[in-house]
């Protein structure tokens, strides 16, 4: 603790003596450290968080009735082509690619929203392995659930596929490791009654990192995430898929936060 010096009573206040006293005061203040500050003296409001403002982003549909998918949505064959095929039908587009966005049903209008999420108003987040990008987002955690009610198909040999895709530039890239398959037929009590409700849920959880974008050969800015559905129908008959409730949640994760000046 610094204690001030004083001139003795009657002593001449020469410049030299005053300078000495003031130099001591200055040095003390310059040595001020955090312990000498009153608690909160230099505080400003900082909100620590690990999720960027405006997120997580969620799109969901509560099914009071099924939404259906038939030839009008997929290619005419309804046929799933190959693992990891990019693109597919978006809302309002028919017969493109081998998969369609969930919510883009055949009849139209029955589903409140497509399972599509735009991140950061379309600008997206750049996922860097070292978190060096301005967005500081290192990974994007995605969670998806969807109820498969049944597949009405005379051939019976149908598999339902669901997967997640991310948007970079003009292309929606499939994350191959998120492709999930459901064999509906073996889940029915009655193998001959294709209208029987099976109601199985398809859960997908994944973390999109820079490594995923390298594997897909895309840029590492994730501008959107969406959930897709397709059918593998070996006999290419008139399959009709019925889906129920779904929820897609996307949570960007910050690796560090820069304090903002206020």
């Amino acid at each position: 603790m610094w204690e001030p010096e004083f001139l003795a009573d009657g002593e001449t206040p020469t410049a030299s003596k005053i300078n000495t006293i003031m130099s001591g005061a200055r040095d003390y203040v310059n040595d001020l450290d955090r312990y000498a500050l009153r608690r909160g003296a230099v505080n400003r409001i900082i909100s620590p968080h690990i999720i960027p403002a405006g997120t997580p982003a969620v799109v969901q549909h509560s099914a009071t009735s099924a939404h259906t998918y038939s030839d009008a949505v997929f290619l005419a064959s309804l046929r799933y082509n190959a693992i990891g095929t990019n693109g597919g039908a978006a809302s309002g587009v028919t017969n493109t690619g081998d998969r369609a966005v969930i919510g883009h049903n055949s009849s139209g209008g029955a589903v409140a929203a497509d399972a599509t999420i735009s991140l950061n108003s379309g600008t997206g987040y750049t996922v860097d392995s070292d978190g060096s990008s301005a967005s500081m987002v290192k990974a994007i955690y995605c969670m998806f659930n969807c109820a498969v009610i049944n597949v009405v198909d005379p051939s019976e040999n149908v598999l339902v596929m669901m997967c997640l895709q991310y948007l970079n530039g003009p292309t929606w890239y499939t994350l191959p490791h998120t492709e999930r398959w459901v064999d509906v037929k073996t889940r029915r009590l009655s193998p001959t009654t294709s209208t029987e409700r099976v109601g199985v849920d398809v859960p997908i959880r994944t973390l999109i990192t820079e490594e995923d974008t390298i594997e897909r050969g895309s840029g590492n800015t994730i501008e959107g995430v969406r959930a897709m559905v397709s059918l593998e129908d070996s006999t290419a008959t008139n399959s009709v898929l019925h889906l129920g409730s779904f929820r897609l949640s996307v949570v960007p994760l910050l690796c560090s936060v820069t304090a903002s000046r206020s």
Partner: protein
Amino acid sequence: MPTLTYPGYYPLTGTASGAQLHDLFYDPSSPNASLAMLNGRLDGGNFTTTFELEQLHTQRGSVVTAFGSSANANIDYRAQVFGGFEFGATDPFEFPTLAGEQKFYIPGGNVTAFFPYETTILLVMFTVYWNAHTPDADNMSSIFLHVDGTVVQDMARNVSNTAPLTGTEVDNYSTNYGYKKARAFHGHFVSPATSPLGANLLSGGWHTVGLGIMADPGVKMTRIHARDIVVMAFKSSGS
């Protein structure tokens, strides 16, 4: 925190006059050049602009906290306990409204915890495995997620008859146990956005998040097997 450095002052020369002494302490024409600085001009500018928040700047549990629960003891619910709930027979794809009906919270699938702060984002992940025995496919047993009793509509899943494997099925599946159509439901929930909670924040205090069950009275028996739930509460930026 960076080192604090204050401007110097002008040392006096010769014999100090009263005016010089006054300006030494406070020079109205150049306050920063006088000892008026000692009055404290410390402010946010003393922080470096590249200052980054790291783990050491936060207290444990001050930003996010988590709770969990699990159980694997089977629980049977008999038909008599589910009064009043009827699935429609005309629409085979109908899902229950889950409103105003008899429902039960599942022990081991619920978390009642004290949230130490107002929560901006609630993240829930859960898994439940269950089956049911019913006389026809329209009699459903439904599992749903709730937050303080408010049902998350899109996190409800139904199951009808889950018959034990019999006859050739046993041979085909090479097993003599298990239930055909028994259901594993690994669901999730994130708020806010489109949720029954809307854009509202969960206040600090006690909350219950978990799984519930309801069934058509026609369901003879429905059985909960293993279940677990994890709840993460992220602090609001404003509290």
